[in-house]
């Protein structure tokens, strides 16, 4: 899922924002997105498996949920004029056709202020039955 979203965002014109191919952490596990503003970072996928339909012969129908987090940090006082449209474009990654086989797509956007930095965090969740 991360690869598909990264390809989709990299092909978009998101000026003045850029898309980083790297993970959002440095060698000390400090967030790179707080150092490099206006750069979009995608974290690695988290996968969770849970029982969707329990059956008594032990071979339950499982649901696999893949979570991808996207980070965008900007100056909170001087927000770029393209900020809102960029957030919409990132959010639209939820519905890209290159991600297939999923029966549920969710996106949650959280905004937090850290000093003078506005951190916009996107949490994409894709669920499928396995």
């Amino acid at each position, binding site marked *: 899922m991360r690869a598909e979203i990264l390809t989709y965002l990299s092909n978009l014109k998101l000026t003045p924002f850029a898309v980083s191919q790297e993970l959002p952490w440095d060698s000390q596990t400090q967030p790179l997105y707080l150092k490099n503003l206006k750069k979009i970072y995608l974290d690695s996928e988290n996968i969770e498996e849970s029982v969707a*339909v*329990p*059956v008594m*012969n*032990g071979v339950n129908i499982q649901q696999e949920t893949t979570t991808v987090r996207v980070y965008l940090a900007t100056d909170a006082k001087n927000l770029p004029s393209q900020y809102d449209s960029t957030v919409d474009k990132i959010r639209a990654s939820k519905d890209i056709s290159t991600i297939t086989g999923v*029966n549920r797509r969710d996106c949650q956007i959280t905004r937090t202020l850290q000093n003078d930095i506005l951190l916009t965090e996107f949490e994409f969740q894709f669920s499928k*039955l396995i």
Partner: protein
Amino acid sequence: MTTSYVAVAPGTNNPEMVLSVYGVAGNLTVPSLQNVTINNANDVFTWSQLNESAKLQVATTSTNSISTNLVVEEATFFGSNASATASSPAGEQGLLGLSVHKVKCNVSLNMGSKTVSCVGYVTGLAPTVSADSPVWVTPVTVTVSGEYTFA
């Protein structure tokens, strides 16, 4: 006093229903059961007597059935032979074929270390799927003709 609960766990005592066409060799094992109910409902004859303050009752003939819900598995539901007839083995007919052909079946169901057996007919199929539950599930009812036997 010792107790022996019939606990169901994956791979241990998990109920499976086995059907075969009456008088025809060949079983259809139905896995992926979500729940099972064995119904044994006696009819009751009730009467009053002048020397009794309460009505008297006696059990008469019973109406028996086995109800279950299961996840639809293609081979089990549709059978292995699209051209199966009413005299084909149960595995070839599948649950749908046994219901459509209205075939009398031998049915057995394990309940812990015991096996419940009966003769009946498959009915009550209603496969369902929804956006919230994107796996086909169906109820299945076996209307039992006669009594259960236990072994």
